[in-house]
């Protein structure tokens, strides 16, 4: 979906505030909220976070978005109920000593300990090669995807054929593996001649083959 999360190139968010520059989060619960939702969701929360109401997305902090998306997603899938959540919130609100129940699962711990990097499959049937000129399709996919709007319709050059990977798709879809390419675009192709920037740049982004077509 082309949602509020797709903010590359937008104006209006002000300067980058780095504070001490080093903090990764504000409060202890935050990383825990991310881990809980990651584990319960089977390690993919992107679609659920993107489906948050846009005003909620923008007014929530980063880990709050994970929490809200987790709650909405798990209730939606029937993993927990609104009643469960309300009952436990009530417990913790009224009993300052209360803590969540404690459980153990050697299998789940082993799964976490065994998590490794993503692996690509060979892209043996890749349609494009390094150096090819390609254009990003103009589209508006209603489902989760990884092709931001700021590259739509733009023409760039294949910098590298990355490998084959599973195309993002709604739960229950067939597993489709497709080549991914790193595409390099000039900034002027994406954003025009920006008189406010001293000097040029390029943007490189990894795109599935289905997002691309040969350059016109």
């Amino acid at each position, binding site marked *: 979906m082309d949602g509020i999360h797709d*903010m*590359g190139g*937008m104006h*209006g*968010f*002000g*300067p*980058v*505030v*780095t504070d*001490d*520059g080093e*903090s*990764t*989060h*504000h409060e202890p*619960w935050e*990383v825990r909220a991310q881990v*809980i939702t990651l*584990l*319960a969701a089977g390690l993919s929360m992107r679609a659920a976070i993107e489906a948050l109401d846009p005003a909620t997305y*923008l007014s929530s*902090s*980063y880990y709050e978005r994970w*929490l809200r998306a987790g*709650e909405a997603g*798990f209730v939606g899938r029937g*993993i*927990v109920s609104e009643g469960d*959540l309300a009952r*436990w919130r009530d417990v913790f*609100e009224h009993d*300052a000593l209360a803590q*969540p*129940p*404690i*459980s*153990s699962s050697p299998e*789940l711990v082993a*799964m976490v*300990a065994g998590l*490794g*990097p993503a692996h*690509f499959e060979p892209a043996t049937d890749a349609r494009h090669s390094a150096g090819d000129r390609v254009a990003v399709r103009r589209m508006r996919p209603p489902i989760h995807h*990884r*092709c*931001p709007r*700021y590259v739509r319709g733009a023409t760039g050059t294949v910098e590298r054929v990355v490998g084959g*990977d599973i195309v993002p798709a709604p739960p229950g879809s067939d597993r489709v593996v497709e080549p991914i390419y790193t595409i390099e675009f000039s900034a002027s192709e*994406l*954003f025009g001649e920006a008189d*406010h920037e*001293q*000097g*040029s*740049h*390029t*943007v490189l*982004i*990894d795109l599935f083959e289905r997002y691309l077509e040969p350059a016109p």
Partner: protein
Amino acid sequence: MSGGATAAGGEPDQKQDHGNDHGHSHYDSPASRRPRSKMELRTMALEAALVDNDVVSTDAIDEFVDYLEHRIGPHHGARVVAKAWTDPAFRERLLDDGTAAIAELGISGPEGNVRVVANTPEVHNMVVCTLCSCYPWPLLGLPPIWYKSFAYRSRAVAEPRAVLHEFGVDLDSDLAIRVWDSSAEVRYLVLPERPPGTDALGEDELAALVTRDSMIGTGLVAVSA
């Protein structure tokens, strides 16, 4: 001018105070200074309900949190950079296949399919994830707050020089900038340039110079005065 004037509001993450008191307690203890926030209560409730329903287990949560908070971080990336500066063969392997090269140093894990891109006198590299928060966890740990901010996500691809200026980095206009938007499963690490005058330093001393920002591309490595 950069992102345009804004009135009121501001980003939720950027406007908060934060004490940064990461202890080993999962949640703020009853003895802590401030009462549990609403979001903390909701997180506790979500954990309780999911544990109660056997969807997740406490020890798996603890294991993953401990990994993210204490067992990964920019010191891993700094080791890799320092080795690349001192070992030309490793540097070559690192730029050719980042994932395999960092595994030589025992560095691996989720979000660790890595491509390393090298700064040169002609090219400066900079990494962003416009759609969410993709980041090379095993090498850099969790991303800093600003990396996940709407300001950085929206502006890095369109006006990197203005963004770099806010980090105190002003590059020559004839230097080419490559901005890497991490939209698939590759995670990018910038190999910064080795500062001049460091020939006498060993790997550990060099690693101590390497900042997190220099490996994201929003900083340069300098010899401390």
